[in-house]
């Protein structure tokens, strides 16, 4: 036997994450003064907080116990029996040892745990032989093969062969249960991780277990579909290949997929993710641990939506408006020259008041810094905007983590599970602890909600200015305040980049709140009035996203020269003079400030799609072309001093 077997076996990233979580929780409970119990695991004495499970105590002692159904973020069910170990304790005045499922037994004073005795080995063999009795062992065509806990546990703890010769249970193999997830009931070991995830974490109970014994099957409620915004997580926590991703299925073997740390930019929450890529192409998104944001989860928008980086719809060639008014393909040099020529022409003939720029709330802080250096730095332009909505500009009072401790949560005018997924998951936690969670469609319903000073009021950034006044007065009267939750991945990044013209902007300014003036309206009015003759729109789509769509349409139908950077065609690029195709989040490095004010910096994961360029490089080149060469080699070179990324763990 190789030394990789048994307790010394290398752990998968998911297992290491589980063990880390146990160790951190144990320490936190100890620091919080939870009474300790002492026991001996494999000859080593350990003290753990009361309530710790034996399997967790064993992890803290550095022992290895194999498991399938146990998960540190789910309640224990003892469904798989993989975690058997010898537990010796005092019963009826006598010490006796017996084999127990350690994920269901709380550690107690004086216990002696043994994880490697011949009895334990035999029990582990037996459990695996039984689990495999009905398992199809179609590993060669199973997406999980190569990163499968069942394979790993079998090689480390399993019997070398089986005594079963009976037929295995058969089902329709790949059963789609939602747009994203395929179920293979033959492979399911009924560990109930997915069903517990659905009821305890996602809070929607969209998966259940029906029938019993060997006939047990997992699935959505009879005849329904697994429609949850969090379904993708079950793929990751399923210890076998029973739940697989329709998007990733057969896209590559897990060992060919490289994983790089990144953060999701599909919404403002900033979930920490591991981007799986194979031969330069993003193939899947997994969750990565960050206790302050996403714990270890992702939403489906992030997990599956980020596949748009591979979309054939991506822009890969710069576009320029020709003499006949049509947008035609061109090369980067021509496109950038056209931008520079117009910029210099407008600046010389009409002055800096005729120049404007709209910063990016989905790109990085650094993208905005370089935009600011060009327009404000070189040309002293002051018409620099970024906020397209009418919301008060202030970081939310309630952080993501704080919501799980709330007693009364009111969300107004949004689908929390879809719009603010990580706030939603914390609200489920709060609800499980007895909190009242209320969701109202619009401010009209606010009168019916009894607010108290402890109420946590969550509001999107897409309402009309008047709505915020209504909310503000209701919440000030109740003394609870309210939290505006930004939608975009980097809503305040442009502020930190200095687009407001503030000296040394900082995150703490944002906690206090900025003034409410919407510069975007000024820029758009200037455009439609003809006083602004050149505008650089960085990675946003004001024609679609401005509340005042009439103004936005008028602005971009004017004669002004409009430069737009974008990954896709949209209503604003359609009206542009020059369109520059830019790299996606996975193809560019930089920093983002998430919804509750955490600054996170990431590296590029894959090279930019052919023909596209990272936004910061485009801005660097434009700066150089107007005679402002900057000594910048990576985005972090321009991250304003004083901004220290909290980073991701």
């Amino acid at each position, binding site marked *: 036997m190789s030394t990789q077997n048994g307790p010394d076996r290398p752990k998968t990233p998911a297992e290491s994450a589980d063990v880390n979580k146990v160790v951190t929780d144990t320490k936190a409970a100890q620091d919080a003064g939870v009474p300790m119990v002492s026991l001996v695991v494999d000859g080593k004495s350990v003290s753990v907080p009361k309530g710790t499970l034996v399997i967790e105590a064993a992890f803290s002692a550095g022992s290895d116990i194999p498991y399938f159904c146990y998960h540190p973020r789910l309640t224990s069910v003892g469904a798989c029996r993989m975690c058997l170990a010898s537990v010796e304790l005092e019963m009826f005045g006598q010490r006796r040892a017996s084999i127990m499922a350690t994920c269901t037994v709380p550690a107690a004073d004086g216990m002696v745990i043994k994880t490697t005795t011949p009895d334990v080995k035999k029990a582990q063999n037996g459990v695996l032989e039984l689990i495999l009795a009905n398992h199809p062992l179609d590993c060669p065509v199973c997406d999980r093969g190569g990163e499968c806990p069942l394979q790993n546990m079998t090689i480390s703890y399993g019997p070398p062969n089986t005594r079963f010769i009976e037929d295995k249970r058969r089902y329709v193999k790949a059963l789609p249960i939602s747009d994203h997830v395929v179920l293979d009931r033959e492979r399911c070991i009924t560990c109930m991780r997915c069903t517990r995830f*659905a*009821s305890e974490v996602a809070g929607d*109970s969209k998966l*259940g*277990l*029906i*029938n019993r014994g060997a006939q047990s099957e997992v699935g959505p*409620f*009879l005849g329904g579909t697994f429609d949850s915004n969090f379904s993708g997580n079950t793929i990751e926590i399923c210890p076998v290949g029973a739940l697989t991703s329709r998007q990733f299925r057969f896209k590559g073997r897990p060992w060919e997929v490289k994983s790089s740390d990144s953060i999701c930019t599909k919404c403002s929450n900033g979930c920490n993710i591991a981007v799986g890529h194979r031969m330069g192409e993003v193939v899947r998104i997994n969750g990565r641990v960050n206790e302050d944001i996403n714990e270890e989860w992702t939403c489906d928008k992030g997990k599956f939506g980020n596949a748009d980086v591979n979309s054939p719809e991506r822009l890969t060639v710069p576009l320029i408006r020709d003499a006949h008014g049509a947008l035609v393909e061109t090369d980067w040099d021509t496109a950038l020259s056209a931008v520079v020529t117009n910029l210099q022409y407008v600046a010389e003939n009409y002055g800096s008041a005729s120049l404007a720029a709209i910063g990016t709330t989905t790109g990085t802080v650094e993208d905005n810094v370089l935009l600011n250096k060009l327009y404000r730095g070189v040309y002293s332009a002051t018409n620099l905007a970024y906020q397209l909505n009418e919301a008060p500009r202030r970081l939310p009072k309630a952080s993501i983590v704080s919501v799980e401790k709330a007693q009364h949560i009111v969300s107004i005018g949004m689908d929390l599970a879809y719009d603010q997924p990580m706030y939603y998951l914390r609200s489920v936690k709060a609800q499980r602890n007895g909190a009242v969670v209320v969701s109202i469609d619009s401010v009209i319903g606010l009168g019916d909600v009894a607010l108290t000073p402890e109420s946590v009021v969550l509001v999107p950034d897409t309402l009309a200015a008047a709505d915020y006044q209504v909310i503000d007065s209701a919440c000030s009267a109740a003394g609870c305040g309210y939290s505006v939750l930004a939608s975009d991945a980097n809503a305040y990044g442009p502020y930190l980049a200095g687009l407001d013209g503030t000296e040394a902007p900082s995150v703490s300014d944002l906690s206090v709140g900025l003034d409410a003036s919407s510069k975007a309206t000024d820029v758009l009015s200037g455009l439609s009035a003809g006083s602004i003759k050149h505008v650089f729109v960085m990675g946003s789509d004001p024609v679609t996203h401005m509340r005042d769509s009439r103004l936005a349409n008028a602005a971009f139908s004017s004669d002004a020269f409009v430069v737009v950077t974008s990954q896709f065609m949209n209503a604003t690029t359609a009206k542009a003079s020059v369109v520059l195709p830019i790299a996606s989040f996975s193809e560019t490095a930089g920093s983002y400030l998430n919804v509750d004010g955490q600054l996170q910096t990431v590296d590029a994961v894959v090279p930019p799609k052919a023909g596209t360029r990272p936004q910061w490089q485009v801005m660097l080149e434009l700066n150089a072309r107007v005679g402002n060469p900057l000594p910048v080699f990576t985005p972090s070179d321009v991250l304003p001093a004083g901004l220290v990324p909290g980073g991701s763990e």
Partner: protein
Amino acid sequence: MAKFTDDTKRRLDALIARYPTAKAALLPALWVAQEVYGGWLPPEAMQEVADHLGVPASDVAGVATFYTMYNKRPVAHHRIEICQNVACMVNGADELIGYCERKLGIHAGEMTADGTFSVERVECLGACCHAPALMVGSTYYENATEQTVDKLIEELANMPSESVNPPQSQMPEQGEF
């Protein structure tokens, strides 16, 4: 189509009141639903129970499908449930089941085309001392023979079905816990 009437809901509320949580009333609530839905539990019945108890539908389905005595398919008016466990088996249960199958022209687990009878293999009925035993509705037939079967089929052919649920007297009364 919802089938729970105000009366059904009153019965469910009375059941819920007996338990510390609404979820705990799930088993008796499913009996009520099975009665209201004509002897079986289609998904709509489970959904109605879920809605009334405030329990996720997937949990209700889990419980309803776990127990064989909740029917997940339409059932015959008269279900001839024949014990196939050890005591009955050694006393001729298999022969008795075969006799019923031939007589009614169906296999165990099926029901006659007119929906009057079905033959079902069940586990121990707790009447081992009078094996073989069979049960129709809530009536036991012990030391059953081919003649017993002939007679009961003749008698039941034109009788309306009795409740498939356990008699109310067997349901726990308030305060019995």
